[in-house]
């Protein structure tokens, strides 16, 4: 850097470099100092743990969202995913598996609920996994099976690097995964994680129904059965499930909010189903409904 500062007499001022880190607070020790130091160490450990879990959680959330985006490119339900999409999903799951394995040891026993708020990624993960399961089987995966899938992810993530990452939930962990994976700590999915994730699933199903009905000219429905169900019926089934369940969560507003959003998703899909039924044959494939109001000035 050319030039340097001068003082009022024209003498060059010395540049002492960046200020040294502030001297540690000079605390006069008193009778309570040792106690506070111990408490500080405990709190530090807790905060550090919470930060580590939060970081991993944000990454898992982002990866889960990417899985959902990939899945939204599927065009059929009740069928295996197209290979390229399945490969994307698998690769994201492999990354998620490693992240889960990295924090699993820190959320055992009493810590599982202690860090619940930092584990919101599980809701997003439930959403992604239930969505994937629905597209492949046209059913809602139940809580026990889903919890098992998430546990297996943590085990896979703990397995040594060179193991092939199997598609979570459809193929068993290879025998060779061995002791490390089998004994690895896992992360538990609470009923709250499951239910809130399934609430969010209805939103993705609604988007899926909208896209596929516009592009394929039909409501997505199952394949090769005598009476294939459409996505409209599936949405109705999910909606009824939540309407009939007593409200969970002890007074927080989350349940009510998610219920409201789910109701809107169900109604959007209902409308699609109605449109298809009434006007299905009239519309060419790829036609998208005009959502503007009727009285529009005609453009010249």
């Amino acid at each position, binding site marked *: 850097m050319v030039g340097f500062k001068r003082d009022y007499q024209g003498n060059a001022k010395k540049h002492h470099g960046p200020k040294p880190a502030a001297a540690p607070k000079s605390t006069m020790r008193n009778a309570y*100092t040792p106690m506070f130091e111990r408490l500080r160490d405990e709190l530090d450990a807790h905060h550090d743990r919470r930060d580590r879990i939060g970081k991993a959680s944000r990454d898992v959330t982002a990866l889960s969202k990417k899985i959902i985006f990939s899945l939204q490119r599927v065009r059929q339900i009740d069928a295996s995913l197209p290979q390229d999409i399945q490969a994307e999903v698998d690769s994201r799951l492999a990354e998620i598996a490693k992240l889960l394995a990295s924090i699993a040891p820190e959320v055992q*026993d009493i810590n599982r609920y*202690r860090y619940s708020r930092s584990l919101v990624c599980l809701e997003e993960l439930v959403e992604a996994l239930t969505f994937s399961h629905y597209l492949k089987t*046209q059913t809602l995966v139940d809580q026990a099976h889903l919890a098992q899938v998430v546990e297996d992810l943590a085990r896979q993530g703990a397995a040594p690097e060179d193991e092939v990452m199997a598609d979570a939930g459809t193929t068993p962990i290879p025998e060779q995964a061995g002791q490390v994976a089998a004994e690895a700590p896992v992360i538990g999915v609470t*009923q709250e994680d499951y239910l809130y994730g399934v609430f969010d699933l209805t939103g993705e199903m609604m988007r899926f129904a909208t896209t596929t009905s516009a592009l394929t000219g039909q409501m997505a429905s199952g394949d090769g059965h005598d009476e294939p169900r459409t996505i409209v019926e599936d949405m109705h089934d999910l909606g009824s*499930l939540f309407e009939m369940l007593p409200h969970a969560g*002890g007074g927080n507003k989350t349940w009510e909010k998610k219920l409201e959003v789910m109701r809107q998703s169900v109604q959007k899909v209902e409308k699609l189903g109605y449109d298809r039924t009434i006007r299905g044959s009239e519309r060419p494939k790829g036609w998208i409904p005009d959502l503007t109001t009727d009285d529009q000035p005609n453009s010249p």
Partner: protein
Amino acid sequence: MATPMIDPALFEQLKSKIETDTKIRKELHQILDDLNQHIAFTQGLFSRIHSTPRSKYPSLLGQVEEGIRKEIESVGKLSQFASQYPYYKYNHMWTRMIQDAISTVLLCTWLGGMGSEARPGELGRLLTLEEIGEVFQVPVNLKDQDAFHVTIEEYLLALINIVDELSRLAMNSVTLGDTSMAVQISSFIKDLHAGFQILNLKNDILRKRVDSIKYAVKKVEDVIYDLSLRNLIPAKASE
């Protein structure tokens, strides 16, 4: 026929879990109502401290200790019930109350109450987190087991509660003619303030409450200043 969208058994499972959870919360509410009454009663007794000369402390503290004994009983019931379930699932329901209960014990012992043969009461005694656990007969800072216990945060927040109370007492003691009490409170609050500065705090409720300690420090400093200006500090107690 295709597999149904939702397994019929699933609804029953989900429903029964939610109903169980609701029952647990209901029962907790009942236990906590009782605890709350005992705490409110004890806190009410403490309000008299601001108009009680030190010589009459033993009698007042005796009544306070009665209230505290009832608190301990309720906390015992809470501990027994809540320990059946994950601690952090429901602890938000009772954490404020536990802080208040701890505050009553901290204040009582600081004022010289709850003495025993092994350890007679003395003015200025601050119980540690572990000693609080012994009073309430529950574990503290539990890490290797999922059961009811008192947390570090609860202890610290309770401690800050009595700082406010004592700063008020400092002023009222002077009014009652007890200037050495004000001096002792001043020294105690300043020591605590220094102690709280040692903690590394995040932007949470603890941080907010710790920030408020400085107002209590200032309040008591003003009282001491008023006293020293008028040479009212007893020679024995001044530095």
